[in-house]
């Protein structure tokens, strides 16, 4: 493979920060106790957990007791949605979400449909956004939960969650509001109180912490039913021995990201703008969704007519540049992207979308290299097309 690796798939997962890897490794080897143990090793591990909770609650501007650690973003979303629906089913059986949510939300909703809940899936505009009015229009007396993602993983659309939260609470204060912030945490200020959110889901491995750890914010007085039953850890809401090293790693990674959030956002936006200026000069290449300051700074979704995304992905990979395809598609089984469909991507373009996602570990040179590779590869690949 080519000498330098340029990783532009940070919305899939990220490289663990070296100091996080160090901390995790130290806990593996030294503070390996079970936080529930009575002895010193347990106390030591529990101290790590407490420290992590304090750090993270500082960032989310909430109380440590509002935080539940999970195994991943998917578990956080599932616990929020299914746990909340089951605990509040006597109040109502109606839930609202959007068509562009991550499968962790959409599939949890499908599960609830099977249990007799009624789900309303809201359409989005061409930029992938849903409006507060759309939500309040279908909000009912018996709506127990609304779930809207903060940042879309595929095209980087940023939903007006604060406005949606305010609108929900104005119309029906009993309705709970869940925000899937997996793509947003670490790249945007996430304060549940300001979003009027009762539940917020976060994942560790999207923010340079290890895989296998997630976080769920649960507001005061919000009732949820646990999904896992066992030793009663975390107030019985999430049994199972805590992933101490992963949790500590997630907290440290978050701390690092939030220390320079504004500067980093500016950097990411500048890289995005710089890249787009070059990429959009390639004939027929266009960007999906909004691309300015009202979009996610780290996600760039490009339409490249005439080139299959998977081929372009492998050709870039050959040059050490790692991106993802908007919708993994193959001759045998097309996997349709719900988001691309919802924003009205024409059928013949579904297979022509690639996504680049940056992180604080990327530099401007990476964007130059990626844009240059695209400018070279796209015309070359367009010479060879199917049938």
């Amino acid at each position, binding site marked *: 493979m080519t000498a330098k690796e340029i990783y532009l798939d940070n919305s899939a997962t990220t490289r663990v920060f070296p100091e996080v890897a160090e901390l995790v490794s130290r806990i593996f080897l030294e503070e390996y106790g079970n936080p529930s143990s009575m002895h010193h090793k347990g106390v030591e591990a529990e101290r790590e957990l407490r420290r992590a909770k304090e750090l993270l609650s500082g960032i989310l501007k909430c109380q440590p007791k509002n935080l539940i650690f999970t195994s991943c973003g998917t578990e956080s979303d599932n616990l929020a949605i299914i746990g909340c629906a089951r605990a509040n089913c006597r109040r109502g059986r109606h839930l609202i979400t959007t068509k562009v949510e991550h499968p962790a939300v959409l599939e949890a909703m499908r599960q609830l449909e099977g249990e007799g809940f009624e789900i309303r899936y809201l359409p989005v505009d061409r930029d992938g956004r849903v409006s507060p009015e759309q939500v309040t229009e279908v909000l009912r007396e018996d709506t127990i939960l609304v779930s809207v993602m903060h940042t879309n993983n595929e095209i980087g659309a940023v939903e007006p969650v604060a406005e949606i939260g305010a609108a929900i609470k104005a119309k029906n204060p009993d309705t709970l509001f869940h925000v899937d912030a997996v793509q947003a945490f670490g790249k945007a200020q996430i304060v549940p109180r300001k979003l009027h959110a009762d539940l917020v889901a976060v994942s560790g491995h999207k923010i340079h912490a290890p895989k296998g750890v997630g976080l769920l914010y649960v507001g005061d007085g919000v009732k949820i039913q646990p999904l896992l039953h066992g030793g009663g850890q975390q107030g019985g809401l999430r049994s199972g021995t805590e992933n101490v090293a992963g949790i500590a790693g997630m907290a440290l990674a978050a701390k690092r990201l939030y220390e320079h959030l504004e500067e980093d956002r500016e950097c990411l936006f500048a890289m995005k703008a710089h890249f787009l200026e070059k990429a959009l000069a390639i004939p027929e290449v266009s960007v999906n969704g909004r691309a300015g300051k009202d979009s996610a700074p780290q996600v760039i979704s490009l339409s490249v007519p005439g080139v299959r995304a998977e081929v372009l992905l492998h050709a870039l990979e*050959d040059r050490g540049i790692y991106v993802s395809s908007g919708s993994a598609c*193959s001759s*045998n089984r097309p996997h349709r992207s719900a988001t691309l469909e919802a924003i009205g991507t024409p059928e013949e373009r579904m297979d022509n979308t690639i996504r680049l996602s940056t992180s604080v570990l990327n530099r401007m040179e990476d964007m130059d290299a990626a844009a240059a590779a695209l400018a070279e590869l796209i015309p070359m690949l367009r010479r060879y097309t199917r049938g």
Partner: protein
Amino acid sequence: MQYQSFLIKYAEIGVKGKNRSDFEVKLVDQIKIALRRCEGKFAVSRKSGRMFVDAEGEYDYGEVTGALQRVFGIAGVCPMKVLPVVPYPELSAAVGDFFGEEYPERSVSFKVVARRLDKSYEMNSQELDAALGGDLLQRYPSLRVDVHRPEVTVHVEIRDRIYVYTRVLPGQGGLPVGSAGKAMLLLSGGIDSPVAGWMMGKRGLKLDAVYFNAPPYTSERALQKVIDIAKIVARYTGTIVLHNINFTEIQLYIYEKCPHDELTIIMRRYMMRLAEKIAARTDCGALITGESLGQVASQTLRSLECTNAVCRLPVFRPLIGFDKEEIVAISKKIDSYETSILPYEDCCTIFVAKHPVTKPISDVIERHEHQLDEKIDEMMERALGTDEIIIVTESGHRILKAREDDLKPGY
């Protein structure tokens, strides 16, 4: 119940005349290879036209019978009770105990088939049939004798030891791998080619395989999928040497120079040529493909004629007369189906024309291939040079020779 021994039944190799002993030696080898992966110690022996697997101590019954039932050349596996040569009353008691354990419900029809090979034994075969049958009936009154169509046949063989068995677990049949030589399987990621390889393995061929990949049009996962499929076939055929050839350059050259409706057929002709060249290097006596007549445009009679024309080696197409459903059924039986349907692009599908020719004419194809004259020979050489050699066994794979290519065509 722990059986101490297994009788191996082999139908076809029994009739091979003077070559019989060669086949038997190959079968013993294959059985030993299959048992190597099983827990326990086993001895494989041949005695006067019978093959035995003796277990020495503890073993996992399901694992061992499963392994034996996958060995090509075995028609049936009979789990047996083994006794020393004992006088009749003891023998009868032991047969009764064994029967009682094998059929606890004891309401079946049965007959006894005894063979006395040790002529010094006190009773002959007919006497044993009658006496053992009578004793069993007396001990288990709910049994019925049926000498024509019994539900259970109790076999008793008196040799240097006494073997008793009532069950025959079906084997794959066929001939032991390697007894028919070696052939090169053109392996894609699809459903058909592993089935074709399995079928020819069953006829005694050892397999090498060749896979054509086309980066960046095919992914690393497509290769992994092919390795996984080879691994499944290797459960039956033993180790497969897989050759991974980079085909991109040739494919794109064909795309540029030849009519698009002939792409697939010309591409397949070059695959056959390359496969034959690798086959020559590795001493394979035939090529094997998963083609089935009329399944797709490149598998019509005329298309097959065109692809066949470039090879000197015989091309085995065991699926030629099979419907897709029949192929799928075998693929499910040998357990390759689930892997075959994983959605990764292979190089046969990336540039498929909307309406490929179904009645290509060899002369026309040849004339169009001349448009490749300028560079195709060096490209073939380069492609052969990319040969990545992967040793695939049932339990894993290792790369014997890594890709040497710096083949970075201008896509």
